């Protein structure tokens, strides 16, 4: 039998979909003008590591989960999985023994095993990759899911209880393990926004000195904050214009909202600031209830910090043989 042409029937049965589990890749470009956001993995670094450890292509689809992850039962031949992030999960072996899972390490699963991704730990997002990858169709050249527009694989939906996930043939996946610490971030660094001068002197001072709490009204679209009210002294509305991820906008109630990967593409609230690209992966991992502080920096510094961050990501990826 020619193994190359043999198509696998391996699959997962979704026992529990989890809070917000979606297929994601590096994001979808060039569709802002029709109203589709970039989407893609929220924490790009952990997404890249998940694919690298499992020996898949760098832009292959992974399952991203938030807070509570999915519970998946596996049917098929033995193969490897990897989970990245700071995640509590268990592998329930078919013979009823239960093992606590370890992140950043290939784990072999066998027919009948169940992976229970219980929760993320002091973070929000985690990533699940599988040897060979998920059998999905690209939509506009991407495996990213934008649930609000029902765009992406799995009909643009979250994973649902009871559904099945088909898999590709497994590739070579050697044992790999990475020692990595997901460092915490002290400040979110921000470049002044195009409407910075809409806010009172006291408010801009507060913005860069006081704590803001990440509220529960936070998801892939945006992070709603609660703290010192930011008083708009010019106009609480602007003519609707384009938005980009990382924009910090302030509606009339004076509480900032940071736009994240699934944000609406057009909006009319003033932009007080823009979080820098280097801090994005860490920003999205800050769980509701935590406090954050903003720190002002200049464009040139932001560009250099991004270069450093990208270099650091590549160093981590290169550590994986």
């Amino acid at each position, binding site marked *: 039998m020619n193994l190359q042409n043999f198509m696998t029937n391996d699959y997962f049965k979704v026992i529990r979909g989890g809070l917000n589990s979606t297929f994601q890749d590096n994001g979808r470009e060039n569709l*802002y003008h*029709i*109203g589709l956001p*970039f989407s893609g993995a929220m924490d790009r670094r952990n997404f890249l590591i998940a694919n690298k450890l499992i020996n898949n292509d760098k832009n292959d689809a992974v399952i991203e989960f938030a807070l509570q992850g999915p519970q998946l039962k596996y049917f098929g031949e033995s193969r490897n999985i990897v989970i990245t992030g700071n995640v509590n999960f268990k592998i329930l072996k078919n013979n009823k023994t239960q093992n606590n899972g370890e992140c950043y390490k290939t784990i072999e699963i066998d027919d009948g095993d169940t992976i229970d991704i219980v929760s993320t730990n002091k973070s929000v997002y985690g990533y699940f990759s599988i040897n060979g990858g998920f059998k999905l169709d690209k939509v*506009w050249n991407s495996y990213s899911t934008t649930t*609000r527009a029902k765009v992406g694989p799995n009909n643009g939906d979250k994973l649902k209880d009871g559904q099945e996930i088909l898999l590709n043939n497994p590739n070579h996946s050697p044992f790999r393990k990475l020692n990595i610490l997901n460092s915490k971030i002290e400040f979110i660094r921000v470049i002044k926004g195009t409407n910075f001068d809409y806010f009172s002197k006291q408010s801009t001072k507060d913005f860069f000195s006081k704590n803001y709490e990440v509220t529960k009204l936070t998801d892939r679209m945006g992070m709603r904050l609660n703290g010192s009210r930011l008083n708009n002294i010019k106009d609480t509305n602007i003519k609707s214009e*384009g938005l*980009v991820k990382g924009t910090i906008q302030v509606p009339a109630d004076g509480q900032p909202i940071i736009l994240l990967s699934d944000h*609406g593409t057009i909006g009319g609230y003033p932009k007080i600031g823009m979080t820098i690209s280097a801090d994005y992966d860490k920003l999205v991992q800050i769980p509701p209830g935590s406090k954050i502080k903003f720190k002002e920096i200049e464009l040139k510094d932001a*560009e250099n910090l991004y270069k450093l961050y990208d270099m650091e990501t590549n160093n981590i990826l290169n550590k994986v043989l």
Partner: protein
Amino acid sequence: MIKNIVNLGDAAIYCDFGSDVNQEINSKVIKYFKILKDKNLKGVTNLSPSYNKLIITFDLNETNYDYLKQEILNMSFNIKNKHIGQKINIPMCCDEEFSIDIQRIEKKFQKSKNEIINLFLNKNYFCYMTGFIAGMPFLGDLDKKIQLDRLETPRVKVPKGSIGITEQFCNIYTYESPGGWNIIGKTPLNIFDPKNKKKPNLISPGDQITFYEIKKNEFTKFYDK
């Protein structure tokens, strides 16, 4: 032509074409958008045209603000030949069930439903931009006699296909979504179809839109097709 170019964070360029909202300024924005889209500049990941701004998003691994700004400033934009969009006629049913805000609008303007709908139908609309939710067209300008503010408290759910008005604009909800526009009718057309990969959005910036009224029985027939 661009009044001002600044950075929007570290990975986007903000081109300001002025503060007014009119078709002349917006046509310039659309022109720049189309030219830049065709040029496919290295590192550019997204273009967001709106009433009077154009935002260009880029990949910091491939380019940066200073470099891309210079590239744009050096480019020639032949702005003279005015962009001509498509003409599209949209069916609209104003049955009670669909025109959920009409009674309030009747009261506000002391006009009958017929008068209001006729004022709405007697205009050609220009598509300024699409977005917020996928494919949603922002059309203008409404007759001054029926311009009104947004709802004070937005609805949690506006049905897909709903046609709403606010200030000088009109839009069509391409998905069920939260929203604060005043709903006067509903179209059975699918304004955004993600399965149509080449042209998912029926209406693009620069298009000329008119509406025509259909009865409830004609409306339901659209779904049978």
